[in-house]
């Protein structure tokens, strides 16, 4: 067996654990981003002026600062300053979650703005409160509408998670680098890393596409009938 191949075989369990860690980071980040994103989008669309301003600042900050800088600022700065005992894995998940939250907010905001304004008035005429309307009328629609854009966000965050190696989170990229440094076989290892990211992208996007089809309301969307 050529050296490069035997190195790969030896490293595979180690890299697969790293793949699992990457999957954990991305899942946690996407979930946090979903919660933040929905809350921010609701505030941005239906909130009053001061709230919209504050939320606008949040989105502006997290979209404006590179993830790498955010990682350093939060991991070495804020979390330490506040005495929060977050390890690298947790810190990366939170930072990526807060970042994708800003982007997801805009996805949901766009979906909300695409809904006819009359729905809100109709619900109000039926005696629903604003919160009830948002929860039972608006969110079920916009979450469905947002799945395609959301799967984009998933693949972007997945690849951003590679930056976690700079603070020593044991994910795919860091582990690939460690093995490459010991074995001096970087090329086959980085090819393997690329394939592992590709695998995670494919799995996630396929799962979301299935979800999209499962949740489709017959007659509501125009999938397949122009």
């Amino acid at each position: 067996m050529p050296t490069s191949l035997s190195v790969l075989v030896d490293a595979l369990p180690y890299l697969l654990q790293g793949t699992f860690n990457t999957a954990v980071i991305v899942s946690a980040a996407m979930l946090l981003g979903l919660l933040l994103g929905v809350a921010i989008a609701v505030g941005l669309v239906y909130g009053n002026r001061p709230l919209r301003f504050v939320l606008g600042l949040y989105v502006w900050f997290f979209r404006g600062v590179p993830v790498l800088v955010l990682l350093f600022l939060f991991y070495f700065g804020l979390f330490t300053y506040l005495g929060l005992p977050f390890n690298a894995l947790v810190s990366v998940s939170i930072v990526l979650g807060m970042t994708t939250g800003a982007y997801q907010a805009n996805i949901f905001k766009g979906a909300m703005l695409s809904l006819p304004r009359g729905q809100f008035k109709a619900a109000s005429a039926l005696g629903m409160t604003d919160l009830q309307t948002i929860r039972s009328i608006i969110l079920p629609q916009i979450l469905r509408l947002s799945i395609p854009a959301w799967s984009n966000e998933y693949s972007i965050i997945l690849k951003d998670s590679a930056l976690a190696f700079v603070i020593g989170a044991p994910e795919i990229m860091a582990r690939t680098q460690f093995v490459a440094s010991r074995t001096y076989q970087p090329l086959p290892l980085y090819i393997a890393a690329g394939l592992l990211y590709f695998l995670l992208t494919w799995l996630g996007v396929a799962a979301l596409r299935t979800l999209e089809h499962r949740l489709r309301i017959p007659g509501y969307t125009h999938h397949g009938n122009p």
Partner: protein
Amino acid sequence: MFRALLLFLSALLLTSGQSMAATKLVNGIDANFPPFAFIDKTGQPSGFDVEAMNWIAKDMGVEVSHQPIEWDGIITSLLTKKIDIIASGMSITPERAKQVAFTQPYWIIKNVFVVKKGSALTVETLLKGKKIIGVQQGTPEAKWLKEQIATQRFDYELKYYNSSPLAVEDLLNGRIDAAAMNDAPATDAAGKKAVQILGTFGMEQEDFGYAVRKEDKELLDRINTSLKKLMASPDWEALQNKYELNK
């Protein structure tokens, strides 16, 4: 830019918090630095410094774990208490000694140029022949080489990498003419790739030491005591032989 940011944050955080009772130590390592620290085939931290630290921790009666950290941020990680000690081939330099406290030296390291096997290049042509030299960023050799361009009028161009194995890879790719690195990792590289050690290039030899936070004076004393014991024991030579540091 990130280095400046890290330094700023370290300065900011240097004063905050007090040290905790050390029964469990976290050792930060640069896992891209064989044979001193690396990840072995089973995925566990290994290397000369890792094993030496295990020995020392056992002697001190504490537990130690080894946390791989990007080299550029390793001192910041120590100062922000992400780790308690750096036992990972760190050269004792005046700049670093301003931020952290070092144990007694335990290893002398020389910096060497590594070139492709069979290369006709000499140290002289590398220094004054408009060549490109690769080096790991955040290291004393990187700093020294940069300074000499002005002071000794050397005319090489420096290319920075985040580990010396990556510099060696780019050397083989032909993007750089030589890689400047510590002699022990260079020997490791020469054993695994088609490269050879050309020799030292005028930089003074350096001492490796273990680093702790300045306020952890008691920890430093205890580590020093155990380190002295280790260096006086036959295990010290056995470790050197195991990681081929005597080659």
